[in-house]
């Protein structure tokens, strides 16, 4: 397994701790189901991205924490839904049985909606109304027809079919890129960043998000199940990036996307080095 950047641990710890405050382990069966996926071993790339973006734009880590947690809750919610028998019917997630295998389909659905709802509730509760409205809009867009829902819908329609590249990009953009962009944008918003900084961070996240997804495709083809936490060739029925470019081509393009992501950070200079480490980590996953 590729080691995450050293500074990551501190951010991960703060996110984990905050997530446990919002969704404590135990409680009712729905709460247990929510906590099961939310607290599963994870790199917390999205919330860390939110916090790094906030710090880069001069904001405080603590102020970005609620937005970061919201991102992770939406992500966990999407994973539960994605794994359902009516969707991908996946047996493993993050090295453990998927949520519906552990708690049953009905509780899995409730847990997914519980996390989704809690993410918006957190934003509404933690931020003043103007910022809360903007963050809610950003997150809703990432979840909606142009984001996770749209991406998953396109993904379902594409299963067992030959799809073209534009559709594949649409799926990746919706399922991964949208939340990456929302994570970076939200962090910048909590720091009160201007449109130029937000646009630069969105460009970083967009390129990094696709690179992340391409690498996921690569790992699915020749990755180690112990490292990826899911069964290899699980996506065999689907058209992936590798289908279009081959293994080597996919690696090359993922690296180029990471380089482009870094270049988008040039207005920030050395202050963005931690985000660059993040993209380097993403790129290294494919090596």
């Amino acid at each position, binding site marked *: 397994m590729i080691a995450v950047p050293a500074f990551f641990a501190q951010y991960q710890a703060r996110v984990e701790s905050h997530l446990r405050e919002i969704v404590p382990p135990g409680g009712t069966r729905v709460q247990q189901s929510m906590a099961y996926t939310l607290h599963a071993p994870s790199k917390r790339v999205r919330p860390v991205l939110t916090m790094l973006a906030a710090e880069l734009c001069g904001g405080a880590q603590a102020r970005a924490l609620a937005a970061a947690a919201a991102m992770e809750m939406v992500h966990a919610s999407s994973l539960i839904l994605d794994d359902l028998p009516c969707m991908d019917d996946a047996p493993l997630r993050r090295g453990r049985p998927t949520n519906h295998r552990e708690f049953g389909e009905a509780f899995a659905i409730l847990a997914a909606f519980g996390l989704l709802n809690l993410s918006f509730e957190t934003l509404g509760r933690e931020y003043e109304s103007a910022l809360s409205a903007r963050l809610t809009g950003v997150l809703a867009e990432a979840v909606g027809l142009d984001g996770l829902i749209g991406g998953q819908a396109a993904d379902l329609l594409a299963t067992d079919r030959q799809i073209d590249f534009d559709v594949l990009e649409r799926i990746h953009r919706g399922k991964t890129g949208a939340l990456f962009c929302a994570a970076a944008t939200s962090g910048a918003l909590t720091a009160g960043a201007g449109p130029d900084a*937000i*646009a630069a961070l969105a*460009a970083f996240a967009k390129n990094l998000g696709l690179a992340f997804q391409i690498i996921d495709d690569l790992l699915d083809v020749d990755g180690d199940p112990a490292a990826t936490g899911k069964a290899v060739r699980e996506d065999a029925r689907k058209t992936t990036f590798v289908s279009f*470019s081959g293994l080597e081509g996919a690696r090359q393009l993922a690296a*180029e996307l990471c380089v482009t992501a870094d*270049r*988008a950070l040039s207005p920030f200079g050395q202050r963005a080095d931690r985000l660059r480490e993040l993209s380097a980590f993403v790129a290294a996953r494919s090596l």
Partner: protein
Amino acid sequence: MHQHDPRVDELRQRLRSLGYLDAGVDRFVLAPARAARAPVLIALLASLRIGLLAGLLLGPAAAVGISGRVPGLVTGARDAVVIALYMGALFGLAVATAALLASLAVRLTARRAPSAVTRHGRGWGAAAGTLVALGCLAYLTLWWQTANAGIGWDAPAWTTFALLVAVAISLLLGHAVRVTTVAVLVAGAEPGTAAPAVPGASWGISLAAGVLAFAGAAAFLVLTAPAESTPAARPALTVVPSGLRTRVVAIDGVDARLLDDLISTGRLPALAAVMDGARAKLASGTTPDEGATQADPARTWTTAATGQPADLHGVYGLETRRIAGLRGSVTVSERSPLAAPLRAATDLLRLTRPSIASGHERREMTFWEVAAEAGLRTAVVNWWATWPASREAGIVLTDRATLRLEHGGDLDSEIAPPELYERLREHWPALRQRAAVLAAAAIDERQGTDIRTVLQRSAELDAMQLLLADAVADRALDLTAVYLPGLDIAQHSLLRSVDDSALSASTAALRVEAVKSYYVTLDRLLAPVVSAARDDEILLVLTAQGRVAAENGEGRLAMTGPVARRGALDSGALVDAAPTILHALGVPISEALAGRPLTTLFTEAFMARYPVRRVRHYAAPLMPGGGRGRPLDQEMIDRLRSLGYVR
């Protein structure tokens, strides 16, 4: 090393078209519009960004172009930066407006035919972008044609480089407009309508467009190229010396008819002696048939000195404008109907301030500069638009030299060579005293006090210029030229209000008589110059109408000396003065001059021995260095105002 896989190239292009990889410009242009939803707002915000890009890219290019077109405007790196900022703002605004109009026009079309957005949206965006790119490319190509005058047409590498830069800038701005237009269309698309995809930046298409644009720009450059390119090389001027020295006395404000009358009555013996030699009537225009044009001393005397009309020599008038932040100055042709209101508006906004015509504006060489370039020893005193003085043009006592000598302080290119300044400054009190004595002796004592004061002032000015000319001519010079403003100043002071009904007939008659008396004064001042003329010396007296325009507006060029054809009478124009003087010096005449040497003024023997030789052109004048102007600038204006030159 990766093996080349065509599938990867294809995917890379597709990714670019989907906004991944190097989409930096698109991101920059659309960044402020991300939060906007209204198409008009998106168009406005993105157009402002495009304007900013255009300003940054076109400003420096325009600064180079404008400094080529308007000599004197840019005197150094600081001026270039300021002009680049001005031009950047101007072109930024223009391109932003063009981008806004283009995107709004497309938006309007889309509203009328919403169903066509999906099918034609990208095409409309491409059309808007192409229009802006073509406009930009045409401008930059024409800019290069102007700007390269200093580099030369014999520099194909530079031309290719410039065109490539122009193509790159044009494609970039065109692409930005295209992206903006599509973004506006997407934002305004009806719900449920499939919006056009964001255009990509495929290398293949960009390269093809670049090659096409380059070929088009090159063709455009060739088609619009001037028939004869401007040469950059300084041609060799070979002098065939006649062994004669030439002295030119330029008298401003001469009414040719009055001069003839006074000579015929014997009141001007010294000038009569010169006029007895060869002489020519000079029309004030470019040709003898042209009528009198507006009399402005800086314009008139630069025309006489360069042999070119104002449109070519660039000094349109005495009053120029300095642009805020610049050392250089700019003149606007008085013929432009917009000149006066533009001047008033920019003065009001403090963007410009009045200044006086200087060598910065002049685009043609004067006769003394040509002579100095040819290796002759020259001196010029008090000619208009000679400041700042260049060391390469022999001895130059500029039109600001007396002001500097009066005030002292550090030299600011008022006198060249600089070492002359200390010597003249040392003798300045004595020179002033001598000028006052000469003036007092020369003026008519019967005049009343007021008129006498005016005449004394003019006479002192003229006497001072003649004394300065003598002071610098202590070593052998091939050419001395001195400009005398006294008559014009006296005439302007005394006669400008003669038409005023408040002035009684007797007062008006007195003033006319006073002006006539100044001709006599001037003649007395010139008498030593005429009598001292040696056998190896040509004396030329050049006159032009002053600001109180005479009816015929004629000037005179009279010549005495061993080579003057006695009694010869020719007709020419003011622009003929410079080539005639240069021919007397044995310098070849430029074919590019508007004037011609008045050969009938020379003896047949001289013409047989020294026929007119031609060169294709003279070099461009050396841009004078230095010349900050302040604080003498304002004092110069004040002095000229007191002498009636500036209102």
